[in-house]
């Protein structure tokens, strides 16, 4: 009993420490982004929004933001589509070499990013496609599709094995079943997969740096700013990037919680 309580407190403290470890640098970055002094030192200077004004006035940053958003959105759509297709083919069909097929699909996240980035660069320059926006999109799609597949596959696991047959039985063709049963059933997972892929793509640096050429994404621009000089602009951009990613991830989570809460509320009324 007391051991249980001690364990509970220990685990709570542990979670607190982990969160502190993860979020402290980000919080400091947030604080220094509003600091008037050039160098991140304590005591702080005055409250100032000058670094935000600088980056908002910088056309390079705007251009990078547009590139990053384009890449993130396109990656999210493509990776989620591919992820859904592979998850569904795994759920629905059995075929020879299925194990090899799945291993191949899930391979990209296991390759060190730097190796993958180099390989992508070598391949894209060979086919003369290096430095294009769509080459970053292609590379990010390869990287994030396995995450989308994993999320959607989990959802498909929860589907009653007779659900599709029930739809056919009621007069729905296979395509109609896909549209009216499988896709609606997977909708929460599809949206959260898209949010996650967009977040990963938006934050990804290594591949983007190698492949992007002149179409720099936000993380690449950040590196260029910090190379050579210490510039609190980075704190300001970092805050923006952090907020974008967190919004995507939290949006994906909230969708689930809202659904669960709706179900609970209706259940309580009965």
């Amino acid at each position, binding site marked *: 009993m007391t051991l249980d309580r001690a364990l509970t407190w220990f685990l709570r403290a542990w979670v607190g420490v982990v969160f502190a470890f993860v979020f402290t640098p980000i919080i400091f970055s947030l604080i220094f982004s509003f600091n008037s002094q050039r160098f991140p030192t304590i005591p702080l200077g005055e409250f100032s929004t000058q670094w935000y004004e600088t980056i908002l006035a910088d056309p390079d940053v705007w251009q990078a933001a547009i590139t990053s958003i384009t890449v993130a959105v396109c990656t999210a759509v493509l990776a989620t589509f591919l992820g859904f297709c592979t998850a569904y083919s795994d759920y629905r069909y059995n075929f020879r070499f299925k194990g090899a097929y799945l291993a191949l699909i899930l391979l990209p996240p296991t390759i060190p990013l730097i190796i993958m980035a180099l390989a992508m660069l070598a391949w894209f320059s060979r086919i003369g496609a290096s430095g294009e926006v769509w080459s970053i999109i292609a590379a990010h799609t390869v990287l994030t599709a396995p995450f989308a597949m994993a999320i959607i596959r989990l959802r498909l696991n929860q589907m009653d094995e007779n659900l599709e047959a*029930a739809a*056919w*039985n009621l*007069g729905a*063709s296979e395509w109609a079943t896909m549209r009216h049963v499988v896709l609606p059933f997977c909708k929460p997972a599809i949206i959260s997969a898209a949010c996650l892929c967009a977040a990963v793509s938006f934050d990804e640096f290594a591949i983007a740096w190698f492949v992007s050429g002149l179409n720099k994404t936000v993380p690449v621009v950040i590196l260029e700013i910090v190379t050579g000089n210490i510039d609190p602009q980075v704190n300001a951009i970092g805050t923006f990037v952090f907020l974008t990613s967190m919004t995507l991830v939290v949006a994906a989570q909230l969708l689930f919680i809202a659904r669960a809460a709706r179900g609970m509320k*209706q259940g309580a009324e009965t």
Partner: protein
Amino acid sequence: MSEPLLVFDNVVKRFGDFVAVKRMNLEIGKGEFVAIMGPSGCGKTTTLRMLAGLESPSEGEIRLAGRVMNDVKPHERDTPMVWQSLALFPFLNARENVEFGLRMRGFDAATRRGKALGWLDRLGMSEFAERDISTLSGGQKQRVALARSLVTEPQILLLDEPLSALDAHLVIRMQSVLTNLQRELGITFVYVTHSQSEAFAMADRVVIMSKGEVAQVGQPKDIYRAPANRFVAEFVGRNNIITGKVKSASKGKTVIEAASGTFAVTADTLPKTGAEATFVISADLVRLTASKPKAENAVQAKLISEEFIGSVVTLFLESADGTEFKVQVQERELATLDLKSANALWLSWPAASAHLLTGS
């Protein structure tokens, strides 16, 4: 004469080396309530899935209203099914679930809504029409599933153990809902179950299957009183199955000598003298007395155990040679017998109550 609504003509279904259904011949008429019953793995669900088009026969033909159905896709036939798991669409509410079949057939929104609400109302579910499926109870989900299958007004409804997930008291309620619906609509119900009480309570005809074969087809009372073979006699339960040698066989009366005694059986077919024969006497047709009765067939046995379900008691007794007998009596009848003090009881039955098995 025209063909019955549904015909299984020499239907065989194989999965690799495993034969799930062995050469099935069965005819089901319009408006019939047929239950297919058997232990798990007997092929009853495969039979139903072939009707729905989810499996196609390896050999033979299934004809529905004269049309060969073997290669008709599931969505191109009108054979709605009520699933054991119900398979309701969790992202749609009750009404939208019922509307699904109509939506796939291209009915406009107003017609769909009208029909769906009509069916929900008919099944006493109108107040739950806009509710999420996850908030409904088991019995309510069952009604939604029924409405969803019936909304397209099919000629035939397939039911795959639909009541197996419900509480006992709900099963009885749903049984009467189902039989009333079937009678009112006049459509054919094919009902797969492993539950004897469900099958016997609802069906006009019962098909008993064993290892992919039809063991017997008949009205519930015929299957109960006159099982065709040992499998059916054992499956139907609460039967005393006695095997012995035929001592004499004359018209209307066959005498069988078994380990526990010599018994007379009224039978139309005459077995050969000296051959092995088996007869069945239902537990509820055996009379129990404290003293030796004046009857054709009597056995002395002592009580081993009893099983008490409501007003009916099943007694398990053992005769001198160790044969076990089952006797079913009303609880109030039992009160008149002094079981505790009686050393041995007498079991007796008229020869006409026993049924000689003709099959193996």
